[in-house]
């Protein structure tokens, strides 16, 4: 049975796995954004902390994904087997590109523009929302794009700890020594990654042009 025949035969399960996969990615990205954006903004004024926080996020990213999933299983509250552990791990991975690009994007805004904004009497909040964030948006979106693509890929590994998603087919194929079943998981995952990445890329470009 070829991989596309497998997909057709198992339409209902494939659909379910895609939804699970997207759910994992959406939940992880939401958490990573909720933490990464404010912390990235907070870091802008704190040069000392930048090294530690970005360095720490960097270190997290060097942990192999399968190992990180494994480490998290025995951790109380957030650990265990299932989707919630996977979401914690994926969020940690997605955090670095978001955090770093938020901070760097804002730091790279022309200092003359920020100074004139302050000198004109904009409040720090107005400077952030009306000047710094809009001008940092292309860099920020680039970070979100990288994080999303990575999340979609790494989420396949989450099946190893029972979180579901398209990885289920990959692990099943490995167990069955059946390449076609592996492909039935890998190809849709790659397809989703490419589609989401080009969608965000288009959005990024249109924001950059403004």
């Amino acid at each position, binding site marked *: 049975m070829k991989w596309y025949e497998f997909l057709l035969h198992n339409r209902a399960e494939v659909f379910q796995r895609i939804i699970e996969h997207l759910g994992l990615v959406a939940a992880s990205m939401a958490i990573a954004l909720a933490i990464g954006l404010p912390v990235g903004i907070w870091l802008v004024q704190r040069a000392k902390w930048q090294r530690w926080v970005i360095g720490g996020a960097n270190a997290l990213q060097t942990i192999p994904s399968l190992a990180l999933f494994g480490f998290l299983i025995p951790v109380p509250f957030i650990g265990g087997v299932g989707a919630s552990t996977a979401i914690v791990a994926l969020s940690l991975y997605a955090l670095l590109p978001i955090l770093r690009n938020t901070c760097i994007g804002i730091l790279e805004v022309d200092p003359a*523009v920020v100074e*004139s*904004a302050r000198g*004109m*009497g904009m409040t720090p909040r107005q400077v952030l929302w009306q*000047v710094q964030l809009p001008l940092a948006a292309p860099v920020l979106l680039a970070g979100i794009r990288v994080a999303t693509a990575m999340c979609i890929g790494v989420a396949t590994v989450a099946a190893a700890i029972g979180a579901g998603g398209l990885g289920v087919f990959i692990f099943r194929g490995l167990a069955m020594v059946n390449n076609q079943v592996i492909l039935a998981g890998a190809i849709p995952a790659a397809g989703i990654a490419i589609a989401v990445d080009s969608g965000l890329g288009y959005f990024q470009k249109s924001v950059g042009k403004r």
Partner: protein
Amino acid sequence: MTLPTDSLQDGYAILFQNATYRLPSGTPLISNLNLMVARGETLILLGRSGSGKTTTLKLINRLLDATEGEILIAGKPIHSLNPIELRRGIGYVIQDAGLFPHWSVGRNVGLVPKLHGWQDEKIKARVRDMLSLVGLPPEEFAERRPSGLSGGQKQRVGVARALAADPPILLMDEPFGALDPITRADLQREFRDLAARLHKTIVFVTHDVREALYLGTRIAVLDQGRLVGIYTPKEFLKASEPEIHAFAASLHSGAAGEGAQ
């Protein structure tokens, strides 16, 4: 807060009383500055790079806060004023113009009126007036992005933006410093006419002696964070202090070549 012009009737617009600004490390950038800026004059702050000109300017709109001494505007010590409100009442023009690249020229010019909460129609009318005032036809320029403007046009927009809410005080930090000599001469000439018409109190930072002599009512010379003296252009040319001599000499030798036209 718009600083009301009539409250400046006690003669001076800005008064520095023993103002000192130190870095957190303790190094003073400005030491014991005593300086009076008269209402309606153009006071030039002249000095070499690192003499404290820009620091002095930023003390006025509280982008920096004096660590010792006091600065008064219209009789009020500025440390007692809300810095945001204070800045909205003071025009500010910097060398790179600092226009918001993601906003149209018109929106840039309307920034401070918008911060003051003016109505959109009033802002629009004001933006048209301001662009005309600085020689940029509004129908041609209001909708454009700053990236499409020449250096001289950007500075014109910068001046229009600073004047939009009609502040009694205008701070200018080498506004024409990055322009080519011909454009600079044009803008200097127009700005001199504008200043004479508008009766604003202007504090103008430059290291260009010709510009100082051409635009200044008085010239305050700074050196290493200290005030060397204040001179009218005539007095400046006759002054005997060595620091002034160095500047005056640069006029003839062309050593301060950036100013030569």
